[in-house]
Structure formats: structure tokens, C-alpha cells
């Protein structure tokens, strides 16, 4: 646990001035709180001696003044420490986010996004609680305890020690039930996860559940989990009830002890009524610290565990980023030499011994069945994954020596599965630009990709919000936004990874004709299922099971029997079929 605390220290240290000031205020507040029982004692002593009325009044006024001072210090301590914890939270969150931006695609393949997000939300909250209310409560409970004990000892050492017995029992109850309580809460949480997983499975399979008419047995199974959940909760509630009742009992026993021993002392003349009043007041002030200590410990434990989970993210090595300083020249020659690549974890290689070269400014089509390794090539070229050294070269330089950022700056890519942000259409296109896009750049990119006409039909045109809170785009529209995004980058190398697959035939023709112009002078890599696109390119690479089955100019490939010729043939058939059954 200490290991995780240590990770938090640098973040806290950045605000050590604020923490020091806040803690000083907490000390003052706790000290001011100790004054009132002593004042009351003094006033009652005066009363017994038949004091002047003014003295009583003055004491009352002093009490109020001290309370004001105390309130002020409580306010200062609370705001300063809690604000510092918010600053710590902000810094830690920003660091985490910056680190997430540097993590490689491999890491994202391994980790579920929901889990990552949940850590940055829930675990960060745990850490913030520790850094704020945790530290504050720790200080104020400790100090209040110390001051109260000191005050009581000042009045009557013996009685103070006697009342310490039931008070320490309170802490013992908290400490003793703590681990079991923790275990039982975990058991409850675990069962909630089980129950939740059960429900998730059911909701995900709603179609199957209905089709097989399994509603009843699904409800039965869910009920079983609910029964178990209820049982675990009740077990926790029993322990918690015992613990709370124990705390109440011992708290009140402290007052009882004061009443009995104090009363006896009064009778014997060793204790006085003013002492009794002061003692009970001190004990009242101890109620909260005694109860809170268990809570604070749990908070600290949780915070440490949360920090541990966040440290796991921070400790992940970022994506390797080459060693060179300059980016590639903007010529765009790409060469692949005997490239074999596997995603690891014992999976079969996605590419085996692939070799080819792409000359600057040429247009190359990569075709092949799903899973033949086409998209892997695109991902490697974007440095999303690291190929073995000496297998992939851009402008004659090994890609593993080129930093990702300058390389990605010269590449414009559009994937098959487009990720759009819930923002305006314009922002999503401008996203691709290297800097602030020039006036009209978004419009011309939108025209190029033929999304402009669709945008005209939206209420807010290009400024239309898309996504959950706006217009939902069709798959084809999304792909055309992605195309515009790649185009506005004005890239030297254009990579389209099956980027037209959802666009209908008619629009595709339009997009292709404007792309043809755009691709002039740019190195273009077109991963496609569409044979017309392949036939229209300078060079075709046919992949089959991670290997290059054949490559060459499309005319040559078409002229000999092979995979490419067969693919072209079958596409013709499919096109015919498409035309055949079209609605009359």
C-alpha cells in the first residue's frame, strides 16, 4: 500500500504550500474547538462562587468569538485542502491522458476501453478523496482526539484515563470489524459484478433469448443471483449493525463513566460540577473522530488501491518512437523487404515474407480476401504497430528509426471503420488538417469526397452536429467524411483502407473520378475489394493468407490465369446479379 502512496507523493508535493497552509488552519480550528469546554468550566466555577453576571455574559461572548474564529479556520482548512486535491486530480488526470495518447495500438488491443475510462473516472475519484477529504479528516480527527484528551487530562488525569477505556473500545470495534467489513463489501461488489454480467449476457442476447423463448429460465437464473446478492448484503448489514451499535454503546459508556466516577468524585470532593460539564463536552467532541477514524482508514486504503491501478497505466511503456530527429523527405517511396509480422500472443503471422516497392507518385491497389493481411500493411505503414527492423522503408529509411509524428504528418489515411467525434461535420473534417485549415479548405475537401451535397440537406449544413446528439450518418456518409479528413491533410502518401466499401455504386463513381485528380502526384495505396479500382491503378498487389500471391500492372495480371483474374471475373458476375434483380 505504501508503494502506491509513494506514487502520489510527487503530485501532493507540487502543492505542499497549500497543504501546509490548510493543515495549519486545521490545527488552529481543532485548537479553537478545545477552548469552549474550558470556558464553560470556568464560567460554572464562577457561578458556584456566586460570580458577577458580567463574567457569565463575557464568557458567552468569548465563546461566540472563538466559535467564529474556529469556523473561519475550518472554512480555510477545508477550502484550501479540498481545492489542492482538485488540483492534484487535474494534474494526475492530465498526465494520464497525455500518457494514453502515447500508448501503442497494441495496448489498446489488449485493454477494454470501458475499463480504461472507468479507471480515469472512478479510481481517480478515489485518489482525489484520499488527497482531499482523507488528508483533512485524518488531520482533524487526530488533532481533535489529541486536544480533547489533553483537555481532559488537564482537568482530571484519572478520569481522563478511565474514559479512554470505552473510547479506545470504539476504535477497537472499528479496527476489529474493519477487515471483515472490507471483505464483505468486496463480496457484495463481486456479486453485483456477477449479477451485472448475467444481465449483460441476457441483454446482449435478447434476440436469442426471445427466439428460444427462454425468458422464464433467464429470470430464474437472474433471481438466483439476486438471492445471493441479497444474502451477502444482509451479512454485511449484520456486521455493520453490530459495529455501529458497538460504537454507540462505547461512546455513551464514556459519558456514563464520567457520570459515575465524576459523580462519585463530586460527592467525595475530588471533582466538581464544572469539571463534569467540561468533560461531557469534550466527550461529545470526540464522537465524530472516533467514528470517522475507521472511515478514514478505509478511504486511505481505497485511495491507495486506486492509485495503484492508475500507476499501472502510467507505467505502461509508450509506443517506440524511432531515434531520428528529421521526418522523411516528402518523396514518398515505400519499400517492403521480406516482411513477416505477427500481432503476437502466439498468433499466426498476419504477413509472411512480403516484398514490394511503391514508387513516389504511383497508385497501387492491394487486393485479397478478408484476413489476407491488407489492413495490417496499412497499420504498419502508419506506425501503429512496429515491424521488425529492416523490413519496411519510407524514403529509404527504416520505419523503426522514424518518429511517428513526422511520418504521420505526411500520410493521409481513411479506414473502413470510421471513427467520428461527436462534434460538427466541419470539425470532423478539419480534424485531418495539419494546422488550422485555410478558409474554404473544409468546403473543398467536402466537395472532393462528395459529402458536401449531403451536408446541404442538413439543417446546419457543414456545421451540423453529428453523432448521438445530432444527425446520424450512414456508413457511406461516414466513409466520405473520413475521405475528406484525409484529403484536407494534403498528404504526400494517401492510404485508403477499403474506405469506399459502404458507398453506393453511383456515388462511388463520382468519388473515384474526383479522387483520380487528387491522387495525381501523390503516392496512393488503395486497399480495396472493388476490382474497377484495382484495374485503374498502376500496380496491383494480390495478397493471399499473408503472402503476396501475385503482383504487377493490372493489365499483365489480367492476362494470365490467377487469383486476380478470377477475382475480376467473379466481380463481373456479382455486378451482373446486382443489375439483374434491381427493382423494375
Amino acid at each position: 500500500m505504501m508503494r502506491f502512496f509513494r506514487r502520489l507523493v510527487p503530485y501532493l508535493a507540487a502543492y505542499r504550500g497549500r497543504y501546509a497552509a490548510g493543515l495549519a488552519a486545521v490545527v488552529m480550528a481543532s485548537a479553537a474547538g478545545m477552548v469552549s469546554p474550558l470556558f464553560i468550566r470556568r464560567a460554572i466555577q464562577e457561578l458556584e462562587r456566586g460570580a458577577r453576571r458580567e463574567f457569565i455574559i463575557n464568557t458567552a461572548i468569548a465563546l461566540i468569538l472563538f466559535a467564529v474564529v474556529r469556523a473561519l479556520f475550518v472554512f480555510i482548512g477545508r477550502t484550501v485542502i479540498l481545492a489542492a486535491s482538485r488540483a492534484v486530480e487535474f494534474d494526475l488526470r492530465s498526465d494520464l491522458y497525455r500518457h494514453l495518447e502515447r500508448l501503442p495500438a497494441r495496448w489498446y488491443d489488449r485493454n477494454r476501453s470501458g475499463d480504461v475510462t472507468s479507471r480515469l473516472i472512478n479510481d481517480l475519484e478515489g485518489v482525489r478523496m484520499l488527497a482531499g477529504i482523507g488528508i483533512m479528516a485524518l488531520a482533524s480527527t487526530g488533532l481533535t482526539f489529541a486536544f480533547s484528551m489533553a483537555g481532559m487530562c488537564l482537568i482530571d488525569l484519572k478520569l481522563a484515563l478511565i474514559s479512554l477505556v470505552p473510547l479506545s473500545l470504539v476504535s477497537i470495534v472499528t479496527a476489529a470489524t474493519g477487515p471483515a467489513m472490507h471483505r464483505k463489501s468486496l463480496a457484495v461488489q463481486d456479486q453485483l459484478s456477477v449479477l451485472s454480467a448475467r444481465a449483460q449476457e441476457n441483454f446482449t442476447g435478447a434476440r436469442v433469448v426471445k427466439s428460444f423463448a427462454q425468458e422464464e429460465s433467464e429470470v430464474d437464473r437472474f433471481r438466483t443471483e439476486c438471492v445471493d446478492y441479497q444474502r451477502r448484503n444482509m451479512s454485511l448489514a449484520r456486521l455493520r449493525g453490530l459495529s455501529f451499535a458497538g460504537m454507540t454503546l462505547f461512546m455513551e459508556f464514556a459519558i456514563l463513566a464520567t457520570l459515575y466516577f465524576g459523580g462519585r468524585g463530586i460527592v467525595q470532593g475530588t471533582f466538581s460540577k464544572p469539571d463534569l460539564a467540561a468533560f461531557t463536552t469534550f466527550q461529545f467532541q470526540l464522537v465524530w473522530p472516533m467514528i470517522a477514524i475507521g472511515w478514514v482508514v478505509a478511504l486511505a486504503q481505497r485511495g491507495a488501491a486506486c492509485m495503484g491501478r492508475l500507476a499501472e497505466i502510467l507505467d505502461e511503456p509508450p509506443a517506440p518512437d524511432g531515434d531520428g530527429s528529421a521526418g522523411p523527405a516528402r518523396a514518398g517511396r515505400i519499400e517492403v523487404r521480406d516482411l513477416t509480422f505477427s500481432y503476437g500472443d502466439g498468433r499466426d503471422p498476419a504477413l509472411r515474407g512480403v516484398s514490394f516497392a511503391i514508387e513516389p507518385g504511383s497508385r497501387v491497389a492491394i487486393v485479397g480476401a478478408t484476413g489476407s493481411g491488407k489492413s495490417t500493411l496499412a497499420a504498419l505503414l502508419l506506425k501503429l504497430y512496429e515491424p521488425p527492423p529492416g523490413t519496411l522503408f519510407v524514403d529509404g529509411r527504416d520505419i523503426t528509426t522514424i518518429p511517428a509524428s513526422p511520418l504521420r504528418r505526411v500520410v493521409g489515411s481513411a479506414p473502413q471503420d470510421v471513427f467520428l467525434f461527436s462534434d460538427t461535420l466541419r470539425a470532423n473534417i478539419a480534424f485531418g488538417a495539419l494546422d488550422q485549415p485555410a478558409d474554404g479548405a473544409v468546403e473543398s475537401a467536402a466537395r472532393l469526397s462528395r459529402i458536401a451535397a449531403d451536408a446541404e440537406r442538413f439543417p446546419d449544413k457543414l456545421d451540423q452536429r453529428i453523432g448521438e446528439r445530432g444527425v446520424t450518418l450512414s456508413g457511406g456518409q461516414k466513409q466520405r467524411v473520413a475521405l475528406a479528413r484525409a484529403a484536407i491533410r494534403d498528404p504526400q502518401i494517401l492510404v485508403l483502407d477499403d474506405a469506399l466499401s459502404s458507398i453506393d455504386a453511383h456515388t462511388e463513381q463520382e468519388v473515384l473520378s474526383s479522387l483520380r485528380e487528387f491522387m495525381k502526384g501523390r503516392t496512393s495505396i488503395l486497399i480495396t475489394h472493388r476490382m474497377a479500382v484495382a484495374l485503374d491503378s498502376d500496380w496491383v498487389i494480390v495478397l493471399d493468407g499473408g503472402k503476396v500471391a501475385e503482383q504487377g500492372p493490372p493489365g499483365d495480371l489480367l492476362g494470365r490465369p490467377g487469383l486476380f483474374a478470377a477475382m475480376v471475373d467473379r466481380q463481373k458476375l456479382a455486378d451482373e446479379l446486382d443489375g439483374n434483380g434491381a427493382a423494375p
Partner: protein
Amino acid sequence: MNPWMEEEVQGRAYDGRLMRRFLGFLRPHLGWVALAFLLVAARVGCDLVTAPILKSTVDGPIAEGRFGDLLKMCGLFAAAVVGMAIFEFLELLVTNLVGQRLIFDLRLKVFSHLQRLPLKFHDKNPVGRLLIRVTNDVENLNELFTSGLVAFVADILLIAGVLAMMFALSWKLALATLAPAPLTLIAVLIFRNVARNQYRDLRVKIARLNAFLNESVNGMRTVQIFTREKTWLDRFRRLGDDYRTSSNRSVVTYSVFFPVVDLMAAVSGAILLAYGGLSIMDGTLSFGAFLAFWYLAQKFFFPVRDLSEKYNILQAAMASSERLFELLDTPEESTPAAGAAPPAPTGEVAFDHVSFSYDGVTSVLQDVSFVVRPGERIALVGVTGAGKTTITSLLLRLYEGNSGRVLVDGVDVRSRDPVELRRRFGLVLQDIFLFAGSVEDNIRLGDRTMARERVEAAARAAGADRFISRLPGGFASEVRERGSALSTGERQLLSVARALAADPGILILDEATSSVDTESEMLFQEALDRLLAGRTALVIAHRLSTIRRVDRILVLHHGRLAEVGTHEELLRKGGVYAKLYRLQFEGLRVPSRPRAPITG
């Protein structure tokens, strides 16, 4: 989008309509609720009775030096305290019991309701959202009862009790001591208003921040490819800063509120000291009564703080109950009036001019009509997206046609009970779904009356008995939807055994596109033959062997029934089927072009 980002909308902290409905869920547990309140009253009573005991002890035995009576009074005090602890324990127990029963009922009700909602509802609602309903929202209602209702009653009782005792001791002193109470009340009201608005603002800010975070994590690859890391980090920091500003505002509010309440308590104490002290001097107040007052005043301000802290819980609970009730109000799949006997199971299936669209825009089926006679085997053939799966969905009434009629056993599916209708069918699907449970559970599929012998016979007939007997637990072996140890071939056999055991009148078979190893394939084909014998069957065919085995082929193309006939007839015709046949059932497969959406 991550659904917990949507939960930013916060309702009122108290809504009478929602509360009444919530109380309705308490009705079955009314006895326990009453007991909980009784225990609360008993606990508060014991708590309060310590004050007069304190007074009597100080004024009596202590003042008069009667030592024996001191012991007696302390015994009384101890009894009250022990009583308080016991009642507190029981109160927590009963309160939790009611809370747990309440959420048990509610959770099951929501879950069962979700089972009966039409599939369209599930299509529209992400799984994450529904999960939040059965987890967080339900838990929040537990809070509404335990932290809300019970704690509220306890706090009110305590305040009322303290007031009553103070007034009984000395009404003048009570009035004086409680003079700051109205001020405290005003502070509470102001705080409540400010805190509510700030809380809402905070929820909106955190929701924005988290939505951005969630989107970034999901789209990190895109951010990296387009070298947008710096811009995105800046945006994220800005959102984080907004959130921090809002949260600091709320920190200040809370930091003002609690010391103010403490201050009011101190002012009360000071007044008590001054007025009480002077009264003691005048001889109108005993020291014991003064001490009791002191003691009660301390108790008075606890619940005031407590009530303010419960406010956010109440607000969240109200929002949750609103969402839950809205879900429960979503109409279920329509079922015909109870008592309507299911029609004679002839096994005839017919589509009568059926048109259908999932979204009301893109038409998936257009004017499809056909009749499958009892015992006839039909193959459905067409490219991906031609409407094959939609036909089976309409048969099972997972969706309802926009026009025309779907008839099963000669009766419109809309006038049949959906569960009873679906039990008429046996399904062997391409993507074999195993339910969490044992192998046996997966064969009997919830039919508890099915004899064990029948389960075993079905497994034997399907050829699944061999691998089942090899499993460590045999029929009792657990299978899971994911990560199960069963191979694809074994799953196929299990799904046939399942269908054989149910002995359905009509069979829907969605063939797997790629075959598993030859041995499993042979076993599977044999099992299928046994299953198909004498049943009406609709097969979404992907294999030549199946097409040759059926009586008729229905060719779907662009949502229409393009051709009908036997394999040979259709081949001779040289139309859609002939081309499809060459494309799908001969030689190498090239991914066919996905059908473009109309808007794309």
C-alpha cells in the same frame, strides 16, 4: 457512446408522484416497514431519555451525596444506552432487510419487464444503459429507503424529541437556546438551493469531461494517426479545468455551510450558558437541568447536518426512480387475451404480401408471399442482406411486418402469444448460442418437465452423447457463452440435440457458412437428417448438399421473392439463382459487395 455519460440529467430532489409510486413498492413489506419505524422511535427514545436521567442524577444523588442512588441512576443510564445500542442494531437490520427486499423485487421486475419488451426496444437501447437500470438505478432506490426515508424519519423524531424535552425542562430557556435555529433553517434553505444548482452544473461538467475522455479512448488510434495529440490534450485540459472551477465552487459552498451550522450550535451554547447561568444564579434552574440542556443542544445539531448531507442522495435517487418508472411504463410485446387456445399445430407457414422495414426508410422485404406446406422443406437463398434472416425474424414475431400477414399454423402471428409461438419452432443457428448453465440445461432449455431420458435420447440421436460423456461432469458440465471448452463441432451437435429434445413442429436452420473438420461435419449432417425428418423446415442454405436435399428453393433478391422452384428448375431458368449458385456454391469465394444503404 458510453451510457453512464448520459446520466447527467438530474431531476428534483423530491417529486410527489415518484414518491407515491415508490411507496407502492413498499406495500408488500408494510409490516417490516412499520417495525423499522418502531425501532427508530425506540432508539431515539432511548437516546433522549438519557437527558432526564442525567438531570436527575446530577440534581439528586450527586447534589445530595447519595452514593447508592448514584449507582442506581447510572444503572438506569446504562440500561438506556444498552437499549439504544440494541435498537440501533435491530433498526439497521430491519431497514436493510426492507431495502434489500425492495430492490430484489424491483430488480426482478425490471429484468422480467425487459424480457417482455419487443426486440425493437433492445435495438434502440444500448446494453450499457439497460445495465445501469438494473444496477445503479436500483441501488439508488435502496438509498432512497435507507438513507432517505428511514434516516429522515429518525432525524425528524430526534429533532422533535429534543424540542419536546427542552420545552418540558424550561420553555423560556428552550426558546432562548433555540433562537439561532431559525437562522440555521434559513442557512439550510439557502445552502440547499445553491448546492442543488452547483450540483447540476457539476454533473454537466463531469459528464462532458467523461464523454470526451470516453470518446478519446475509443478513438485514440484516429487521434494518433492524425497527430492530433496536442490539440486533444488541450481540449481535455480545458474541460478538466471547467470541471475543476465548478467543483471548487461547490467546495466553497460546503465549506461555508458546515462551519455555519457549527457556529449556530456554538451560538446556541453561548446563549444557553449566559441565560442558563443567570437562571442558576437566580435559582430558577438546577444545575442538572442546565447540564441536560447542554447535552440536548449538542444532539439537536447532528440531524440538521445529516439532513443536508442526504440531499444529494435524495436527488440522485429521484432521478433514478424516474428513469426506472419510465422503463417499467414502456409497453410490453402485445399478447392476445388470456385463455385463447393456441391453434392446431398443423406446421403450415405462410407469408401473405408481407413488406417490412427496420427503420421505416430502407425497405428490407417487399410484398413477399409464399406458403410452406406441412412437412415441406424450403431453402432460402440470396446474397447477404437479401432478407433471409428477416423472414425468420418475422416468423418468430421478433418484429412485426409493416403490411401483410405472417401465418403460422394458419393463424396470424400477431394474434398469438409470442412465447407460445416461439416454442413451436426449433432453431439451429449459425452462431450457436449456449446459455450459461449445464449441458443438460442447454438441451432442455428451461423445460423442467422434460424427462432426463428424453434429454439423453436427444443427445444420442444428435450424436452428441459421445463428447458429452467425455466431459468431466457429463451432462452436468457447465458451459459458458464465452470461453467454453466446447469446439464448434460440439456446439453444433448440442444445438441439434436441443432441437430434437424440443421436438418442434417447425424447424429454422441457419447453416454455418464454413464447415468444421470432416468428421464433425459428417456427424452433423447425419444428425440434421434425423432432425429434418417429417418436419416443416426453413433452411437458410449455404451448402450445395442442403440445397439438393430440400423440396423447394425460395430465391430472395433485393427484398423480393425473385424465383421459386427446385434446384434443377432454377438452374435451367438461368436467372438470379443460376448466377447466385455460381457465385456462392461453386469454387472460391470472393467477398460480395455489401449492399449500399439508400442514403450512403
